[in-house]
């Protein structure tokens, strides 16, 4: 048991198949507006977690690589100091949180975010009446003019923390009620979520193992000094660009 929590994630891109199961799970959990064709055409589709696809080489020596990217919940987040109304701030559990009813839509935070994980609601989100039955009552529907992004499913953290306190139980590492929706959906176990302050948690052990000399761990754009709470594990394989074969 630890006094405070620092939530974080480990993403093993060697396990990731690029199936997008996490993307759809996130849309469902977090009441993300339906991305219609015109939203893609305007480049205004919203995905709190996305799979980026990178090309290497060309036919026949070609590779496509996939990487899931979501808010990195930076320890030194460039998005936080630029918000004039403290809509985005760092909470005491390591989360970079967005308070929707403070947000006035300056979009400074999106400009500041090097990971491009913040999305602006250019439109009022709309659902046909019957589809509203699916919306998650634990998550606010964001209106037009509001910035939104991955929250590590803070509603799940809150609910499971509250319930474990109520029932006087210890919230276990890897609890399905605590895990963000993307983590539970991932069939290949590429995404692992947990408490970095707990030295016995899976993420802590994986991080320790991965970040030592010769380990597979790295942070996205580590040179920016953002001190992210998401650790990536390197893909294993050969690069076709640096060492073409065949």
């Amino acid at each position, binding site marked *: 048991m630890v006094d405070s929590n620092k939530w974080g994630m480990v993403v*093993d891109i*060697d396990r990731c*198949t*690029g*199936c*997008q*199961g996490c*993307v*759809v799970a996130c849309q469902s959990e977090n009441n993300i507006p339906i*991305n*219609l064709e*015109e939203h*893609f055409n305007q480049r*205004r*589709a919203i*995905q709190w977690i996305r799979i980026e*696809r990178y*090309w290497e080489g*060309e*036919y*026949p020596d070609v*590779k*496509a*690589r996939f*990487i899931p990217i979501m808010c990195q919940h930076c320890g030194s987040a460039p998005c*936080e*100091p630029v918000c004039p109304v*403290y809509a985005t701030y*760092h*909470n*005491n559990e390591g989360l970079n949180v*967005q*308070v*929707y009813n403070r947000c006035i839509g300056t979009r400074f935070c999106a400009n500041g975010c*090097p990971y491009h*994980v913040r999305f602006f609601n250019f439109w009022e989100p709309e659902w046909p009446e019957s589809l*509203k*039955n*699916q919306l*998650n009552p634990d*998550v*606010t529907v964001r209106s037009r003019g509001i910035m939104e992004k991955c*929250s590590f499913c*803070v509603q799940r953290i809150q*609910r499971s923390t509250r319930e474990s306190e109520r029932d006087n139980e210890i919230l276990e590492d890897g609890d*399905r009620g605590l895990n963000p*929706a993307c983590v*539970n*959906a991932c*069939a*290949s*176990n590429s995404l692992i979520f947990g408490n970095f302050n707990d030295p016995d948690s899976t993420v802590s052990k994986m991080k320790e*193992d991965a970040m030592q000399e010769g380990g*597979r761990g*790295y942070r996205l754009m580590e*040179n920016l000094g953002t001190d992210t709470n998401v650790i*990536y594990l390197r*893909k294993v*394989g*050969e690069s076709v660009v640096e060492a073409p074969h065949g």
Partner: protein
Amino acid sequence: MALSRRQFLTLMGGSAGAAVLFQACGLPEKELLIDSPPAMPEDLVSGIDNWYATTNNQGGSSEGIVVRVMEGRAKKVEGNTNHPLNLGGHSALSEAALQGLYHPDRITAPQVRTGPRGSGEYREISWEDAIARLSSRLGELDSSNENNKAVFVSNPTGGHSGLVLEKFTDSLGSRHLSYEALETNVLRTALKAVFGTDSIPEFDIDNADLVLSFGADFLSSWVSPTRYARGYGEFRQGHEHRGRLIHVDSRFSMTAANADQWVHVNPGTEGLLAMSIMQVLSSSHSNAVFGDLDADGVLDSYSPVNVANEVGVSVDIINQIADDFSHSEHPIALGGGSAGAHTNGTQNLKAIYSLNHVASNLGKKGGVLLNPRSPIDGVGAAPPSNSFSEFYRLAEEMKAGNVSVLMVKDADFYYGMTDTADMKVALDSVPLIVSFGGMMDDTTSVADLILPQHHFLEDWGTDVPLAGPGYQMIGFQQPVVRPFFEHRGSNLGTKGFADILMATAQVMGKDLGLDGETFKEVIKNDAERLYELDRGGIVANSFEGFWNGVLQRGGWWDTSYKIDNVPEVNRLDGVASPEFGGLEQEFYIQPFISTLGDGSAASLPWLQAMPDAISTATWQTWVEINDKVAGKKGISEGDVLEIRPANGRTIKALAMPNPAVPPDTIGIPIGQGHRDGGRYSAGRGANILSVLDSKLDSENGSLAWAATRANVTTTGEWIRVPKFENTVPEFPRDEHQDIIQITSGDNH
């Protein structure tokens, strides 16, 4: 003072940090947990949620799911951690079931057609009236002894729904055909020949060290992708040594993208390559299995030198694959998808699966585990689908007036047949078409009578997976919410499919011989037989306890009930060369499944908006074309292309060049181009299936859906491709800070 960007950010961060710190001093700790309005004290919403286990076998692959229900509404789907196949993970298709449940275009009550066929003009009628209409029409056929004039076409339906359907069609003396757009029929024929059983075995990818796959996009769409992705994660990083994936395919699929080695072959030559690998192994290793497998000496003619040219792969690569295969401790060979979609498809797959005999991996860890029979007699996995040649015959019978009632459930063959104009003529010749569709699809849109079935989240059922876990199991499906249209009263709204059939039979005075008055009773009574087996993972003192356990866990399975005996090795047949329609056309068409399955998921907006893994395209039909070839032809992304096979039928789709497409191939996703199917799918994109040549598998008459060639011409039009790529700005390129970092070697 000159301020660098970094210093500026540091200062800004510092001042804001101080502000937050200052705030934190004055506020109680709990206050900082206020993150979003729902958690605010004044409107704290903290309803009680319940999670119910059920089974999703829509689209043919089985997944155990749990559904979060709050105040009577389904809110979220997650994988069932107990379910042997997906162990907690779940697919986007399962998630999107929620949108099927609450789809705005669901049919809310039985309908009878009032306008011309296809006009969409219907009048609502009561269930009593609807069932009376169906039963009286079927009764007329029965009394005039023209039983064979009623035909039931469904998707391959197993479990108890399949049982009721079979009893119903038997009682009518009518024929029942199973339809699926992309047939597992070929796969099952080949498996039967090689392993002696037509159920799809469990591939223990988790514990394999080499997976050699041919054409099967098993990480994306083939058979049971969630289960295979689970295995893939362990295969890569779950053991001391990382598994190696070699993928042989004529298209660069998602599985090819994940492979360590993508071996591009000419379309339809996968079986030749498999034969050649076996030839290398038989000549270089003494393996007793070849005495049985190659008793006729057919392998001799498939040496790498003989086939390399036709396959399009060098002799060295064939030798290297054979070498890798023979030096692996736990290799698996699997194949399907486009490898089975040629005129020689069955032969290709037989050769591919025979590699497992060479590896002697049957029944072994990290190998191929055959599935035992279902624990309940008469309730099995879905039967094999009927081949396209049988459906062509059905169309001829319809045209000749030999089908007077056509009943259709979840089988949109008007959409999926190759020549839909011809199918329309056939359907127009049928006096009564009855659909059990809960949503409009192309076939339902020409129905005269619609008896809308429940969504699967509202209905009972069982599921014996076609691709089981290697031991005996049966998944249970229970209603997780009350029917959404319940408020319309018992004479309107939707009903469970099996209950509709049982009610119709009752009105007709037919005894289906089922043990129960309702579908739930039938299932529960059979569950009692499971209980009496007194084995499996659910231990209970009473049947009620057992029943609750089965529903809570989402099914019953007995991990110790396996198949131990290894099947006999059958002799290898030769593999013929593939034949193509329109050899003079420039490109091979490679239809592929992207996010919409065979088109049945096109009505679900989450899946429409889910980016294709390779192109990131959404909501449209696009054409994958090699970027250099496109450059030479002056084709750019978004150019509207006309696809022209030699058969004269054409479709238009948007150009989407990428660097991985083989120069002689175009890839086109299946799933769009519906006439009907609700607001999210009707009239969107184009249907590639509708222009394919009617080439058939030489052994079982299935559609050779990858055997069409086509010319591509530009139309001069341009439409922006709705895609996710570039929705967010590109990351800056920094050679020391790659976004995707790669390490070589086997370290962790």
